[in-house]
């Protein structure tokens, strides 16, 4: 019991000596952390007005945030009585150690196969990467949902990054009836693709017979477009093929089966 009382008396004496500095430092620390957070939030908004490059915005914001936090902590430590030279040495040593570890360990660190701003298909979802953290990736889907996908799921699955290559292939499958003119159908599809300004000349668009299926002849129509034009072009091609076939008397068959019934007699 006496020991505890002595300890408390010692702490009381220390608080009397250094209490004011400790309180000031804590206030500086807390105020600094809160102020830094809000400052970075508005700084990010300002950057978003100046540029649309998300990786740049994230990089600059994070760097500035770390810098300001280090300043706040250094100032709080200095206020509590830690020598300024010692603080500088600790900061420099920590920074050098961090950079050294990063350079040495980077080849061994699992990295996500995309950056902020990339359009990806990950975790069964298609969307644009808005942010990445150590634990999850924030994905904005095209119907406006924000999804937080755990990074461990992403690293264990196949991820499609549509940003890596500038172009993408549209693969359409169109069936025609066995009675219809095959060469005419191929020619019509080829003309539709050739006229479209979004379809690239190289690699050239192709139409070929994919399969002689149960319900009809399956034609494949493959063409290349820029990533951004993929969905709109695909939908337009399907619409135009259908309308053109209707005008030219080419039928797109329903899946069907012929059943023959024989009587015993």
């Amino acid at each position: 019991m006496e020991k505890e009382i002595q300890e408390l008396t010692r702490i009381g004496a220390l608080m009397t000596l250094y209490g004011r500095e400790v309180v000031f430092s804590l206030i500086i620390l807390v105020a600094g952390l809160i102020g830094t957070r809000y400052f970075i939030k508005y700084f990010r908004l300002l950057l978003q007005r100046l540029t649309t490059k998300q990786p740049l915005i994230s990089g600059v914001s994070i760097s500035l945030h770390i810098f300001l936090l280090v300043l706040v902590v250094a100032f709080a430590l200095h206020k509590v009585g830690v020598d300024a030279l010692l603080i500088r040495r600790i900061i420099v040593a920590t920074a050098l150690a961090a950079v050294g570890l990063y350079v040495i360990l980077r080849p061994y660190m699992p990295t996500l196969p995309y950056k902020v701003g990339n359009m990806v298909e990950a975790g069964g979802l298609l969307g644009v990467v808005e942010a990445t953290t150590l634990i999850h990736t924030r994905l904005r889907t095209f119907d406006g949902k924000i999804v937080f996908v755990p990074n461990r799921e992403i690293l264990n699955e196949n991820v499609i990054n549509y940003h890596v290559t500038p172009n993408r292939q549209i693969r359409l499958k169109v069936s025609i009836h066995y009675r219809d003119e095959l060469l005419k159908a191929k020619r019509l599809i080829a003309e539709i693709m050739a006229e479209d300004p979004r379809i690239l000349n190289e690699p050239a668009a192709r139409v070929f017979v994919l399969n002689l299926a149960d319900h009809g002849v399956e034609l494949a129509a493959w063409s290349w477009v820029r990533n951004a034009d993929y969905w709109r072009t695909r939908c337009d091609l399907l619409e135009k093929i259908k309308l053109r076939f209707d005008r030219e008397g080419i039928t797109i068959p329903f899946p069907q089966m012929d059943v023959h019934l024989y009587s015993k007699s």
Partner: protein
Amino acid sequence: MKLKDAMKVIDEGWIRKRRGYRVSFQKRAGSEWVKDMFPGENEKPLTSDVSAWELARRFAQAKKPEDSEIHEEDIVNITVVDDLGNPVNFYGTNQPRVLNQRTMGEI
């Protein structure tokens, strides 16, 4: 002839690949009919004729004349043209299509 050269001849000749589409129309300005189009000549054209025809249809509906009289700011003879200014057949019928049509005699 090399295959590459032959492919180039084919690509340039067998069917003309349009470079874009615009919605062309005539509007009443004072006592004259003035030709105009959107997107403007200094703007990038539309890349989809499907979109261009849909915009033309909505534009025509928005500016449909209420009667046969000519009014200021009337908009007539709406159609889709390509990057060279040539009329583009409507993809649904493969025929020329002009919305809010007025013949030269009426104008």
